[in-house]
């Protein structure tokens, strides 16, 4: 087991991601943040909390998306659905998708499909905490990434959040 990010590094990385998002969209006008269920929510909650301290708190539209019903491996075992909560239209919005780990890219593929059912975004960007860059199975890349790592398939990246796992850290198992 190897630590990729310690608690302190994780906090700094979240802050950096929030600032990078702002760097590209200074007022967050016409921008919406969408966290991916279930594991991306911990990251998106923190980034949104960070952003609320940096811009007008009311300016941020924040939703949560579950992609279970859009998976390409529906028949290879049952996946339990989580809740989706996007109480606004995505028509002509800049959507920033947030997930914890970018691995094969298949979750993001499904998420892109799902997003279209809420309107046609003008642009979609991807923000992830960990990018496992050599493991992609689809041509999908992040726009904002906390840390890029090289891994092999037999390894697992475990992201722990204080809210659920009592400790903040990212480890390679």
């Amino acid at each position, binding site marked *: 087991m190897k630590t990729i990010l310690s608690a302190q590094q994780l906090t700094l990385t979240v802050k950096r991601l929030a600032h990078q998002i702002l760097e590209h969209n200074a007022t967050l006008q016409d921008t919406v943040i969408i966290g991916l269920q279930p594991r991306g929510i911990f990251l998106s909650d923190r980034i949104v909390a960070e952003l609320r301290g940096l811009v007008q708190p009311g300016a941020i539209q924040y939703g949560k998306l*579950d992609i*279970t*019903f*859009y*998976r390409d491996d*529906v*028949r290879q*075992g*049952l*996946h*339990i*659905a*989580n*809740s*989706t*909560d996007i109480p606004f*239209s995505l028509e002509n919005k800049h959507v920033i998708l947030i997930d914890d780990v970018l691995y094969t890219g298949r979750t993001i593929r499904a998420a892109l*499909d*799902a997003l*279209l*059912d*809420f*309107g046609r975004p003008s642009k979609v960007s991807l923000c992830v905490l960990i990018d496992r860059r050599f493991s992609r199975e689809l041509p999908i890349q992040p726009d904002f990434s906390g840390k890029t790592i090289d891994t092999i398939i037999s390894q697992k990246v475990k992201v722990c959040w204080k809210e659920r796992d009592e400790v903040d850290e990212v480890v390679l198992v």
Partner: protein
Amino acid sequence: MKLSTKHLLGIKDLTRDDIQLILSTAEQFKEVLQRPVKKVPSLRDVTIVNLFYENSTRTRMSFELAERRLSADVLNFAATTSSAAKGETLLDTVNNILSMKVDMVVMRHSASGAPHFLAKHIPAAIVNAGDGINEHPTQALLDAFSMKEKLGKLEGLKVAIIGDIMHSRVALSNMYLLKKMGAEVTIAGPPTLIPKYIEQALDVRVEYNLKKALQWCDVANVLRIQLERQNQPLFSSLREYNLAYGINRKLLESLGKEIVIMHPGPINRGVELDSDVADGPFSIILNQVENGVAVRMAVLYLLANEQG
């Protein structure tokens, strides 16, 4: 977590966990149905036949909508306009349909046990959409979903099931489900329409006085008088039934408390329910219909994942 069964033949075969999984999945599908695009691609590679040997409006349309909103391919079969009218047997009919590569069968039949018979003889997943006077599991699931949505829980809820218990598959499925989920059940109706020994068999209370039953309950699930299944007179007239067991606004207002009114449809207006109740503020009858689609999507989605 997955379902403990390959088919949905009746609530009797489901565990408490199964019911909880179906209801929580249905909640997610209900959200899908509020979106601008009310459709997901989950069952793109699944073909489903709706095999209806008995008439239906709500259930058939609700299943078909659920299937289409899951992106499944849908075949519809109505016995009256098919070769079943020429004498083809149920098993032959289904085997012929399955040879055209159909994955799931949703079926309604006037014979109790027809889906159980099919399940023994064919490989496809079967969803019972009502078999004779036995069970109507998706109705009980959508009733439970609607009660939970309206009142927040099933555990400890007091539910009165009122009317033609004897001929009602909705009543039987509801009793199984509510007991499994920890609700209290009282059945009410004329003695001729309530099966003997039902108290011992299903651990429910029986009450012959309508007003007492209504005063006790949080929810009244009112059933249709099924004249088509009664081959002998069991009460003297519909008018008399209405006088003794019909629910009207005046009666509800005399209770001194609010109760939720449900009905699986179709309603015999002026018999078991008067219009001022059916269309009144306490009725959640149309919510039940709306929830039916989400619940059936959940059932089909979960069963499709049991295959292959």
